[in-house]
């Protein structure tokens, strides 16, 4: 069993949804994540604020976000248990982020000893 991190991108398009659509979308996330939790797949996960800072240049430069174009920006992450990369990809396919036009999940194995 390995751990994988999902990095979510492209949820910014959903800022334009109507209140009702947002609530429906939220319900789908809750259902999906609730399912993962029940199956023991879910380890952790949280959304990220769209503002932030970037520290670079030998810690000499600190600039304001945003760091990338809206659809490139990481909007949140999840850590899951999965047998292997293929299994982690299959789980990611159920993510409601794909309802949005730019929905994108990056699947990365977390290195362990």
């Amino acid at each position, binding site marked *: 069993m390995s751990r994988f991190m999902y990095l979510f991108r492209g*949820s910014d398009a959903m800022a334009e949804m*109507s209140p*009702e659509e947002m609530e429906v979308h939220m319900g789908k996330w809750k259902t999906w994540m609730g399912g993962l939790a029940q199956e023991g797949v879910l380890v952790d996960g949280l959304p990220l604020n769209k503002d932030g800072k970037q520290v670079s240049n030998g810690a000499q430069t600190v600039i304001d976000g945003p760091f990338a174009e809206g659809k490139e920006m990481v909007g*949140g992450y999840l850590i899951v248990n999965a047998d292997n990369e293929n299994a982690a990809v299959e789980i990611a396919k159920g993510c409601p982020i794909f309802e949005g036009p730019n929905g994108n999940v990056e699947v990365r194995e977390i290195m362990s000893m």
Partner: protein
Amino acid sequence: MSNNTSVSNSIDHIFRSEYSKLVSILVGKFGANCIDVIEDAIQEALYKAMRMWSYQESPKDPGKWLYRVAHNQVIDTLRRSNKSVEYNPELEKGEESPHSMNEHSIDDDQLMMIFACCHPSMKESEQIMLSLKLLCGFSNKEIARAFMKNTEAVKKAITRAKQKFKEEVGELQLPNEGQLMGRVRAVIKVIYLIFNNGYTAVEGESLLKKDVCEDAIRLALIIHQKEGYSAPELKALLSLMLFNFSRFDARVSDELELLTLDKQDRSKWDKELMNRAHIFFGQSASGQSFSRYHFESAIAREHALAQSFENTNWKQILDLYNLMNRYYPSPTVSLNRIVAIDQAEGAKSALKQLNNLNGKNYTNNHLYYAIKGDLEIKLNNKGAKDSLLKAIDLTDNLKERGFLKSKLACLH
């Protein structure tokens, strides 16, 4: 899509109902000319909530959380836009929760907002659009989808209405005593039209339309609950809406076809809603005034009382249509009256009365020709074919057209 439906059936419409509360409280606090900033701030707060609450439990009092975030966002934007005239540091107070000062209730804010959205400076169509947007929390796209309108047209109407809203409304307030009943009557009309738009038109998304109807009832109840505001016509309208709404689900077949009264399974009518409708009907009879809502409600009540389509008291319904025809004449009332005559007295009498109508009012009315054709079929009159062809020609609705064509096919 079916997946969509099941999820949205199980949600509580918290976002939509909070939208209308938040917009009312914040416009009450910052003024009508800040409406754009306020709408953006609420949208931002809802987006934030959607993202956070997807991952973790939503807070115990989501409304309070949303208020705090939206309120801070408004302050932030106003401060940054440097509109010192509009921005008053005093406004930063009351950030923690709405009405910590307890000046008036959230219902009062919403009530004032209802009057503001139905401001006399706006056209009726603009009042309807703005109410759907600000009081019911629908997006332009949803309004367009529910009413089969073009999104651009909806957007334009709302922009126009919002311009007047900013210029004319200023601070939210309740109408003064002299204007009160006139303003209440205008609001009642808008609520009636919103409900009818949601209820009667065949096109549009069914789920959205049900929400529209529910919201019309909710708005009417807000006014009803304010002491001194609930006019008899408002109670009649509430009764009418509840009678009709109790049949909402029974009107649609499993194949999503619209069912007429004679084909509905009456056991599916919502008894609880009907009981409430009966109570409002009783209350609407108090006082001297009566209105078209009284008549429409009385007719809806007759249908509710009937155990079956055959047992309906058509004589009573015809009497009501006769009165309506005298006091509130319109082509639609006249045509409904013809249908009642057919049921109460027979097709021969109905066709005679139909032929007495002023044909000029009905040249483009497909219902006129559909009813005419129907009566002519019953009487074996050879004009039936022409009438049905005319009706088919005049209707844009595909389902209706299919229905008429199947009738025509039976003639051959």
